């Protein structure tokens, strides 16, 4: 069974090819079956493989499909490597992926680009699987770029709106910056270790490099660059919120569950390098911390339901980075898992809301949807609970593990822990703000396009099985996913000691209570029946106060990072490009031809046609020549 591992990405790839070659002539049902079915197949295969894997004592296993390139010392194959970590990833990707595909068949039902959508989706799943299965960094890079491409294509899926195109380009280019640093990291690793096979690297690196040596620092820092780009961490996080321009299932699959966590996967995969470079690892931790706080505050100010979720994704990944930074590798992976569940759930639920409100994104234009959209409501409750890490939800366990690990950090333990807890508080605040504003209070939803048919204008929840089933599964997983134990201890053998963390009862209690506190406050602000007056009043108070207003604008704009990059990088580049549209080098060469023409026009003047002038010049020439000859 494990020998069929090659089929994992093969199924979706085949689906992609079929869908592309059909050139949109297929009926939507066929396209849907192919699209979702291919991923379903690879999920089944993944399940079977994992059963076999776990029964066979979780022995790492690798299979070479074919040699890719052998140049001198470099020989890389299309080789897949399977261990606990990979296993978790493929299960998430194929499993959650399958659910989301299923959901999309309903969600995209009346979209003209149905087949195109699924072809991209399949391609994405395929490349994502390659990414996590790769046993060498080049193959990983292939998957890495592949998912980036698909993300680009899907963000810009509704291409007739230039705004989407812009968001897509931004996403691709910003992540490409990270990718490039990662590529350079690859060059460095190869020139130092002479191999790009991950396992070999992990074996060689400790023997060749001393801890904290410059090379190790450089290499891991460059890899971190790649991870930061993909996982939308500071300072490259700006692309993710805009990426919400894509269809909601995309946001669920790519920008919540799988692709954005690739960075986490990369670091976890190469954790030994990071352990060799403690300074970089600490940076990872603080990047995570800063990001999660920043994102938390920003999320609090957003009005767009998807942007809120996007920022929350950023901040949750921040948690994972925090975990990685303190060496709690499996905690990070665990959070990755649970996050995949509840964030996917939230996005899909949000999708139903948006769909039933005819692509209304502004939460303050919704409200009181509790009755109208029961399913979405309950999904949101569950998802937010898990996101907020309320006790006994999946998020609770994973976040707990992370915070405890952070607390254990030798030097900065307290700082990191406090930050993390504060983040948890913010999480509670913004996620339940979302819930309360959307589902409680009064309805602010006025139907645009009233001239349309009623069944178009009315708010009806689409609960077709295709969309209901995934929500159900994900909800269950978000609730009880915490009970799953990730089989990664073997992978992080040396990192395991961080895991059984000790914290005083007080701190434990604090960690449980603070989110609940957060929920209550947001209830006071947005949820309570007095929300209309008190809440609104309070918020007004906050906004009119100069500081509050400033903070509001500042946080709303995602801490002004976009503006910064615009002025620092984008505009100068554009200006330069405009100035030099007519390649200056060209002008230089053309000037030569002007010189020649000028010389010509000057020389032609000597051809007066007057014979006496010719005679004179003849004599003058003689004199000059003789003069030169004599002088020489």
């Amino acid at each position, binding site marked *: 069974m494990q020998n069929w591992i090659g089929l994992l990405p093969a199924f979706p790839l085949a689906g992609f090819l079929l869908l592309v070659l059909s050139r949109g002539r297929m009926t939507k049902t066929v396209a849907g079956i192919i699209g979702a079915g291919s991923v379903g197949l690879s999920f089944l295969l993944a399940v079977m493989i994992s059963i076999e894997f776990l029964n066979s004592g979780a022995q790492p296993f690798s299979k070479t499909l074919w040699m890719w390139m052998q140049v001198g010392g470099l020989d890389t194959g299309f080789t897949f490597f399977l261990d606990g970590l990979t296993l978790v990833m493929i299960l998430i990707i194929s499993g959650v992926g399958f659910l989301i595909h299923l959901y999309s068949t309903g969600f995209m039902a009346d979209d003209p680009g149905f087949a195109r959508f699924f072809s991209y989706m399949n391609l994405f799943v395929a490349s994502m699987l390659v990414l996590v299965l790769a046993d060498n960094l080049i193959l990983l890079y292939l998957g890495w770029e592949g998912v980036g491409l698909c993300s680009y294509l899907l963000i*810009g899926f509704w291409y*007739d709106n230039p705004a989407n*195109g812009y968001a897509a380009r931004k996403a691709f280019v910003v992540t490409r910056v990270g990718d490039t640093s990662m590529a350079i990291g690859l060059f460095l690793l190869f020139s130092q270790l002479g191999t790009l096979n991950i396992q070999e690297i992990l074996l060689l690196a400790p023997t060749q490099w001393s801890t904290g040596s410059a090379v190790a620092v450089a290499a891991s820092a460059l890899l971190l660059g790649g991870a930061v780009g993909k996982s939308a961490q500071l300072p490259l996080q700006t692309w993710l919120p805009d990426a919400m321009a894509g269809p909601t299932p995309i946001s669920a699959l790519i920008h919540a569950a799988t692709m954005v966590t690739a960075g986490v996967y990369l670091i976890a995969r190469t954790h030994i390098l990071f352990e060799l470079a403690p300074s970089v690892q600490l940076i990872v931790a603080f990047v995570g911390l800063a990001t999660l706080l920043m994102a938390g505050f920003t999320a609090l100010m957003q009005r767009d339901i998807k942007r809120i979720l996007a920022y929350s994704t950023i901040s949750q990944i921040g948690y994972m980075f925090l975990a990685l930074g303190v060496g709690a590798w499996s905690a990070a992976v665990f959070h990755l898992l649970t996050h995949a569940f509840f964030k996917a759930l939230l996005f899909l639920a949000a999708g139903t809301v948006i769909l039933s409100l005819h692509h209304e994104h502004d939460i303050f234009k919704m409200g009181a949807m509790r009755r109208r959209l029961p399913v979405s409501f309950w999904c949101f409750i569950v998802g937010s609970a898990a996101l907020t890490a309320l006790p006994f939800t999946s998020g609770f366990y994973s976040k707990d593990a992370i915070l405890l690990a952070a607390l254990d950090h030798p030097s900065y333990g307290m700082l990191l822990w406090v930050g993390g807890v504060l983040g948890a508080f913010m999480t509670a605040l913004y996620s339940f703000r979302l819930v309360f504003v959307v589902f409680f209070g009064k309805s602010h939803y006025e139907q645009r396009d009233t001239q349309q048919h009623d069944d178009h204008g009315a708010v009806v929840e689409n609960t077709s099985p295709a969309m209901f089933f995934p929500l159900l599964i994900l909800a269950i997983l978000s609730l009880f996913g915490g009970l799953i134990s990730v089989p990664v201890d073997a992978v992080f053998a040396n990192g395991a000691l961080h895991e059984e963390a000790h914290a005083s009862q007080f701190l434990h209690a604090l960690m449980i209570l603070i989110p609940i506190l957060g929920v209550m406050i947001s209830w006071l602000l947005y949820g309570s029946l007095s929300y209309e007056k008190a809440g609104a009043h309070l918020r007004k108070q906050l906004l009119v106060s100069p500081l509050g207003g400033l903070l509001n604008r500042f946080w709303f704009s995602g801490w002004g990072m976009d503006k910064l990059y615009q002025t620092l990088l984008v505009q100068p580049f554009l200006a330069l490009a405009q100035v030099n549209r007519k390649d200056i*080098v060209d002008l230089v060469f053309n000037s030569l031809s002007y010189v020649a023409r000028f010389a010509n026009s000057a020389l032609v003047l000597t051809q007066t046609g007057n014979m006496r002038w010719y005679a004179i010049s003849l004599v003058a020439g003689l004199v000059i020549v003789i003069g030169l000859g004599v002088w020489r």
Partner: protein
Amino acid sequence: MIVLILVATLFVGGAIAWASEALDARMPRVVALLSLLVSAVLLLVFSLNSGPDVGSPGGQWWILASWSWIPRFGIALLVGVDGLSLLLLLLTIFLGLIALGAAWDEIKERVGFFYFNLLWTIAGVVGVFTALDLFLFFFFWEVMLIPMYLIIAIWGHENRAYAAMKFFLYTQVSGLFLLMAILSMSYLHYVQFARFSFDYFDLQNIALVGSLQTWIMLGFFVGFATKLPIFGLHSWLPDAHSQAPTAGSVLLAGVLLKTGAYGLIRFAVPLFPEASDSFSSVAMTIAALGILYCAKVAFAQQDIKRLIAYTSVSHMGFVLLGIYAWNLYGLQGAVMTMLAHGLSSAALFMLAGGLQSRFHTRDMRQLNGLWAKLPMLSAMALFFSVAAVGMPGLGNFIGEFLSLLGAFQSNPVATIFAALGLVLAAVYSLWVIQKVLHGSLQVPNEYSNAADLSLVEILCYALMALGLVWMGMYPQSFLDVSEASLLYLQSLSGGAA
């Protein structure tokens, strides 16, 4: 022998094609197709049924044959084919067919003469890739320019006179420097061995010292670098490429540029190892500069073909980088880049040509949202732009990755800057996609009823796409062919540079 047959087939085929116009206006293209197919078959049969001849120098030459030509100067018809040449020959013939496909419906007037020029250009290129006598090499080097000049000058677009003239001037003048260098070599051979010789293998024995070596090397470098082109000598290329008819652009970008790189690999570095070694840092800096600069300029263009042309310069930077890294990775990278860029740029120019023939404009400001109208063409455009971005799994990635990998080992700084080119590549490629394919449909009204790809076009694109995927997924089949010869070339320079 096969080489002569190959060249002869093309030369004669061209002549016949011209003559056959008298019979029927559709004849020439058929004749051209036939002669190209014949040569393709010849080449395939040859490359499948034979291999390196162990006896030959370096034991890596598939063919090595010589006939006396001009005894006075020890000039001989010395031709040789090794893995490197073979790959480039295959590329040449393949792109020749593609160019034929591009011209199939586009060229309507003076058909015979067009195909005559087309075939003669290809023949010249074949000669360049096989000649090992430097005089013969230079001979073909110049010969291939004339028909290309005519192609641009007769069938080019609005500004063809200027473009053709520029193209010819640049390449000719730089060629004279090359000639000077070659003659100096043969004279030195006379001084040291008491006879003139232009034989590649003889010239390897010349003992060159100090600044003299540097000067001669520079002569070679200028000659080849102009054709490549490198940053600073590139300004002929955008005009030539954008003004040439589609088939012309295909050959220019796909094949003619590669002759420059080939020259560098075959002659410039191995013959002057020390000089090249000390020069490599300069060359690699130029390469990095070119990659970034031209990517930036490309971004600013509004004429699609101009844009693609600038991207070609940018990509050739990777080739230069790989060559002057002068280790196996770099060289293999350079070769793969040459092959892959050959296909991708050819395809892109063909697409641009397709747009022009459909909408009679190359101005991106007038073309928008074609996806809705021409889905297949747009899909192709997407595919090949993605390839040009260097997407792993497609040929260009292998080439660029290996070049950078090799370059990093000899000059990390330049490599890092060059790597930034990957980002800029993304910037301009996506910009084109956004402008032309995405957004709301907008084309010049009078041509709003343009048809999607024709069968010939589909065939060409499919072939090129397959080629790129092949190179990307199983490059080994190409790397194996070229490896022996690259190792040989390295051994010539004692691994220096």
